[in-house]
């Protein structure tokens, strides 16, 4: 399958309208785009921060990663797509079911 820009894919993953933890989405993108390692974990997470800042995703919950399954001691955030995010996603040719 043709790979699309990472932010497209993040919006696509959130376009089910369900809230997902950033850690889950980051790990899925890492797998799909073959971007392993801590460097790319932070790299992809930064895209999500920009999407939140741009008003396309919004935080619904947060917790601290105490066990270190993702990144020990950091804030894990649960995000959901916003209405504006849906508009931007549909402009990126991502379909809403």
């Amino acid at each position: 399958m043709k790979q699309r820009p990472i932010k497209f894919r993040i919006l696509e993953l959130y376009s089910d309208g369900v809230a997902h933890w950033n850690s889950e989405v980051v790990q899925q993108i890492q797998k799909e785009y073959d971007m392993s390692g801590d460097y790319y974990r932070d790299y992809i997470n930064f895209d999500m921060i920009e999407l939140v800042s741009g008003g396309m995703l919004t935080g619904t919950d947060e917790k601290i990663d105490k066990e270190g399954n993702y990144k020990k001691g950091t804030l894990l955030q649960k995000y959901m797509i916003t209405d504006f995010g849906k508009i931007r996603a549909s402009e990126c040719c991502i379909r809403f079911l």
Partner: protein
Amino acid sequence: MMTSTNPFYKVEGLKMDDTNTDLKALKKELHTKRIRKGYMWAIFCAIGWALWYIAGTLLWTLDPFFGMYNDLAASDSSTVALILTAVLISGFTAITAIVALLVWNRTIGSHKEIKRSLSEFHPCSKWFLLASIFGGPIAIVGSFIAMGVIGPGFTAVAGLTYPIFGALLAWKWYGEKVSARALGGIMVIIVGGLTIFGGAAFGELAQAEGIPWLGIIGGLMGAIGFGTEGAIVGKGIDVTKPEVGLTIRYFFESSFWFILVIPLLALIGYPMFMYAFQIFDPLVIVILAATGFVAVANYSALYKSYPLVGVAKGQGVANVYGLLTVIFSFIFFGDMPQWTIIVGAVLCIGGSYIMFSEQSEDIESLRGGLK
């Protein structure tokens, strides 16, 4: 090559001890870091932009550009000479910028994202094509018309007003939140810039015969061009990485100069290619490369600030470059600044402080006007 720590994307990587489990405090710190990082990039852009002016000024003193300007000023007019020389310089700096950006994107691992984003024309790269037209030909040619018809002081004043257009468009178009306080800060910085260059601008306008409409239109093209570029880029960066967007923008800008403008000018009869083939002098190449590299550093910093603090604040803080240009010109060229620079400096720093000190924890998103 990649290490486990990633200095460019560290906003979420907060260190904390096990006893600190206060979620709210952590969230607040995360937010503050995001904003601080955004401002840091904008200031970095201001410094880079001022340095760019130094390198850019040097280019005009070197052949083939120096000779090209003089030849065209003798055969046509100084305004035509300014614009055509600026076209050639812009074309070559766009090429060196692309080289620098490809190296940079490879280093940070974004090179594959360039191809992915470029091939998505309708949803993504078209924004950077538009941005390149506004920030490239429209703003650059406009600025040089203003410089030729009225003068550099007026051009600087006109150029410094561009965040007004950027902020207005970002707010109207996609509902970017611009608080009254941030707007106040932007205005204070602009007034600071006007104080620095205002005297020269009034002197130039007083010397002009009648109203120099062409020059005023040029100045407006500069301000609206750069401001509009910012707002359009904000839209493009929604769906790709800032440095990737910048690479695409320069790709379109250089294509525009070399595929359209320069051949067209050559067809009309200007010896553009004759001068273009004379750049292979080591000194010219080095200064061109430096100009391109500095442009990349400051432009990527500016683009990186947009998603973090917004187009309005990013451009507002980056506008401090006006002050820094005067300071760097003093350091590098010994141009003695006038006393007005002190008033201007206080205003620029004061305006930045007004923005930095704004409490914004409740603002998770920069957009609020759209549903």
